[in-house]
């Protein structure tokens, strides 16, 4: 659910109004400075002036992570339905259409095969722009498809989360995606295939409380927001201020939720390094010495 659509949580995002193809300059919301768009893009969507991270789209994220030219989109050819004929402030079908037009994506998640520093992987990457990267029936099925593929091919599975949680416009069916994805996780365990969960800003609610928290290794991108209940809900419940580091990457590390916090610049190398512990050991019992 799009709990994080308040201004506060978009502070690190780009000014949306100015973000059209023909715009050359962007205004960073963190430092307020105008930055040359191409420079930002070349800089992994990190502000060259202040170092703040901007959102990455799924495609940008994939480009950042995998070996150039190695990516193949293996997403299932499915798209969202409107099983509840849900009408909130606007109809779900309209939200979907707008999201598709805005992002150029069919769905909120892309599943693909690629190599990372030459190691073959299956990865599933969410796009927060698409209705808050929320998990409905499509994301549930795509994640399971990624898991099934990874288990079958015995390739590490990498999930990169950027999501506000369950997609409430699909009602109870979105809740059930938590169970669906968690049940598929067994296939990886059974096949002894590693599962690396990469949590970015934000990884919350229904996704955090299911598949994203079930990694063999979990890493947070610096600046990630990780938690179950949204800060607003908690503030309303307890009626007091939240700690400054609440649900931040540091909070997650301190409270034993993730193994490491990783800078965006080093993410690809870090993932490759982690995978080597699992991959090179496949032919184990080996004592090839130094």
């Amino acid at each position, binding site marked *: 659910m799009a709990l994080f659509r308040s201004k506060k949580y978009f502070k690190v995002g780009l000014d949306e109004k100015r973000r059209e193809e023909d715009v050359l300059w962007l205004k960073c919301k963190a430092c307020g400075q105008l930055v040359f768009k191409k420079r930002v893009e070349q800089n992994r969507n990190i502000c060259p002036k202040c170092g703040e991270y901007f959102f990455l789209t799924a495609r940008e994220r994939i480009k950042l992570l995998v070996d150039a030219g190695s990516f193949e989109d293996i997403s299932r050819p499915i798209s969202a339905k409107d099983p509840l004929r849900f009408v909130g402030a606007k109809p779900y079908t309209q939200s979907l259409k707008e999201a598709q037009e805005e992002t150029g994506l069919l769905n909120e998640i892309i599943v693909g095969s690629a190599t990372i520093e030459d190691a073959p992987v299956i990865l599933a990457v969410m796009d927060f722009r698409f209705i808050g990267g929320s998990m409905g*029936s499509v994301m*549930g099925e795509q994640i399971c498809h990624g898991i099934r593929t990874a288990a079958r091919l015995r390739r590490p599975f990498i999930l990169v989360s950027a999501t506000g949680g369950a997609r409430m416009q699909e009602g*109870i069916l979105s809740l*059930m995606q938590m169970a669906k994805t968690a*049940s598929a996780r067994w296939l990886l365990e059974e096949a002894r295939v590693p599962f690396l969960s990469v949590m970015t800003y934000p990884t919350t609610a229904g996704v955090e409380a299911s598949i994203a928290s079930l990694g063999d290794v979990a890493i947070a991108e610096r600046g990630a927001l990780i938690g179950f209940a*949204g800060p607003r809900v908690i503030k309303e419940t307890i009626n007091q201020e939240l700690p400054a580091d609440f649900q931040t990457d540091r909070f997650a590390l301190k*409270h034993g939720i993730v193994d490491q916090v990783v800078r965006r610049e080093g993410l690809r190398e870090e993932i490759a390094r982690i995978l080597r512990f699992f991959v090179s050991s496949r032919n184990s019992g080996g004592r090839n010495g130094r």
Partner: protein
Amino acid sequence: MAGKPSASIHELEKKIEELKALSRVDGIDLSDEISRLKAKLETLRTPTAPKELDDWERVKLARHPKRPFTLDYLEEIMDDFYELRGDRLYGDDRAIVTSLARFEGRTVVAIGNQKGRTAEENRERNFGMSHPEGYRKALRAMKLAERFQFPIVSFIDTPGAYPGIASEERHIGGALAQNIYEMFQLPVPIVVAILGEGGSGGALGIGVGDRVLMMENAIYSVISPEGCAAILWRDRAKAPDAARALQVTAERLRELKVIDEIIPEPPGGAQSDYEAAAQSLKGALLRNLEEIESFDTMEMLQMRRQKFQTMGVYEELVEAVEPPASSRGR
């Protein structure tokens, strides 16, 4: 039992039968008394006709503080039950009850969210909202069930996991994820029954089973109608609209194949007759449990996974070309 209505439908029916018998045997004229009770019974039976309630009224009924809670049902249904307390890690969360119970000749592990009725009870039970230690206690009890091959019955009745600083510090998301995952691995039958309020991840955290049953007037939702209204309409007062939009009733969930069976409540709702509601629940639990017990363990686990694997609705854009999940290799 605190909050139990003074005269339940079941009790009234029994009383009427007794009076009838008395008139027959002793020849006393009790027809006035009987008529009075019958009238009372009628009013008890008709004050609310659930089928005609709108979705928001259903939400309110599902949350009704006089509805029987987990412990009320355990007392009615189980021949004996013994509470298991504590997660052996951090604490004993009173918002979840876990127990060993005797159910129709077998031992089961019974777990459930537990709400309170009085202010004091709610302080103890935290309004049925658990911290991570509650879910970890439940997992401990379920692992005990695994060790001794006891079936598990799980009762859901919670607004959700507790949204608070302490919950997040102790990784509530991880606790829920772990439980959901582990419930797919437990090689014992699991029957889940949603008693009143099935609130989001906090419900699902003890809500994975071979069968998921639902009391007629219970609700089950990904988010509270108030929460949904606050996000989509930016106005909590739109909760009734959100309740309709979210489609949280038992009938609708049955159509969506998220639950397997609707458990009938006595006329007027479970709160009007604890014993009748409990007997209805008991029958459904027993029947489902016996069906699951007839399966081989591997088959049971396979079906449990398959059941949730097929949940969700989406559009196939091309003819299915993907090999089925069970096939291996290329």
